[in-house]
């Protein structure tokens, strides 16, 4: 399907925080509690619309275990957006954010938009990390922040689409050099018109999963 832009995303964070479930919820609109653990990297893609333009998100879901890091970080490069995920019911996944963030910043381009995600918000009774802590971390490191639930789909659309909006804005501001694919943005066959502004951007309209 024709698209104006393609954005490459990565999803990173500790093992078991729900990275693959977030991706599946976003691309297929379903929650699959039982799925195989990710080895290396998995892909997902979906079309969204921002500012009347079709944007294809190509999402790379990476394995979370520490020992794989030296290999998985080679997948980071050329990403325009990153979803950095922790599990609100496991304090240690929050404590590891700094390492993940350093790693991501070191191995990707400096303009990459990073969205911090506290996942499993449906498990309120088991919460170990307050929402305020997530907000504070995001503020301190210049990230966007959201709590999501891959299970109930709460905020999942928003997390992916808001990240795309931020990237889109940066393109409009001329921060991203869209002709350099190392920035994780590719101009699609449906070429965008120039001089467009970000008025009335409407996310959420999509063409369903499986469009790659």
């Amino acid at each position: 399907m024709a698209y104006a832009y393609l954005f490459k995303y990565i999803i990173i964070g500790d093992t078991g925080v729900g990275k693959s479930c977030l991706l599946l919820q976003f691309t297929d609109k379903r929650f699959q509690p039982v799925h195989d653990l990710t080895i290396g990297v998995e892909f997902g893609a979906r079309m969204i619309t921002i500012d009347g333009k079709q944007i294809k998100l190509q999402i790379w879901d990476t394995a979370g275990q520490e020992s794989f890091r030296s290999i998985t970080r080679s997948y980071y490069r050329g990403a325009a957006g990153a979803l950095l995920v922790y599990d609100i019911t496991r304090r240690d996944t929050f404590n590891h954010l700094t390492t993940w963030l350093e790693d991501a910043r070191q191995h990707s381009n400096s303009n990459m938009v990073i969205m911090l995600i506290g996942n499993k918000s449906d498990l309120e009774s088991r919460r170990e990390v307050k929402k305020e802590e997530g907000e504070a971390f995001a503020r301190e490191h210049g990230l966007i922040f959201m709590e999501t639930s891959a299970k109930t789909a709460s905020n999942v659309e928003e997390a992916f689409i808001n990240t795309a909006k931020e990237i889109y804005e940066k393109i409009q501001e001329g921060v991203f050099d869209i002709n350099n694919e190392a920035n994780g943005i590719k101009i699609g066959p449906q070429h965008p018109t120039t001089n467009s502004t970000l008025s009335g951007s409407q996310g959420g309209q999509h063409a369903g999963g499986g469009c790659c």
Partner: protein
Amino acid sequence: MVSSRITNYIFDAFRGTEEQHQRPPEEVELLGEVIPGLEINQQEEPGFEVITRIDLGTRPEVNRTGPLSSEDWIRHQDTEGRMINIPLLKQVIFKGGLCHALRKEAWKFLLGYVPWDSTLEERKVLQRSRTDEYFRMKLQWKSVSEEQERRNSRLRDYRSLIEKDVNRTDRSNRFYEGMDNPGLVLLHDILMTYCMFDFDLGYVQGMSDLLSPILYVMENEVDAFWCFVCFMDQMHQNFEEQMQGMKTQLIQLSTLLRLLDLSFWNYLESQDSGFLYFCFRWLLIRFKRELSFQDVLRLWEVMWTGLPCDNFHLLVCCAILDSEKQKIMEENYGFNEILKHINELSMKLDIEDILQKAEGICEQITSCKVRSATSDNEYVQQRQITSLKVHSATSANEYVQQRQITSLKVRSATSDNEP
């Protein structure tokens, strides 16, 4: 010396990594100068011939046969239960695999859990002592109190990771599906016990994928554990700190690919894909996620014969890449597209087709022509890589050393005397 570093990789690529350390350095150095297929533009070592190019010739057609039957297996047993004609037996298994009913017994031999020349009686004794040993190790983690575990972060981490991953391993397989499936408990307990067996390594993601088919075949906790231990002996380096074993294999694969298909290798390099990270999952868990469950069983038993050379799995990689290179190059895929394309081959590969091709490539390599350029004349030598000659003129008299590149270890059914 760049050239010798590169060439050592070739030898390493064909050689089990274990032997790497046992080889005398001077031999590796000398063998390292035999460079099939690499164009070397760096300064040459004085006196060594420089092999500029390799002529692989056409790939022979290879036939595969049907799986070994239980009757055939029994025919390879003497009255006391020792296996006989083992080289031939391995050759048959390499060519066609095993029928499923036979796997439970035959895998124990193939993996080295029980010796080929053991009698039935000896195997019973062995299995009894292994059973004791297993339960002794199992009791070790079972008897750790909550209090103790609070002070043992590594055990705690292993346990929590295993618990998570057992719930995410082959859950669509009948043997592991549904809640409270007893298969899950076994998977968990064996992995925990393996942590006691090798606490330094403990548990790393991917290991549950390696255990799952073994447990499925063995249907027995103790046998599955020891077979898994044997398999892990081969795979250990993949899971060690910093993934050094993985990186080594990727380099070996890259060297092989360059030897076999320079134009494709150049293409991958030009797309920043020369490190072959897209083969990561293939190598880490031996194609477990690329093939259907039944095909994984077939591939693994074929590889466990150790035929026709060590590191046959690297030739399997080459075989798959060989089938995909046209598409990749014609569509002008970049770094992202290549990785995506390779990832999406999962469950679309034909195991017999791949094995046929991989064996063909192996035969191609073992009977290739090496084009060499000496200081005087250029000549073409038809050489068996199995007995490549190393020309050296460093000493007063030029001498020729005929050396077996033992590292390639091309084994044939007739010459293999291994019991």
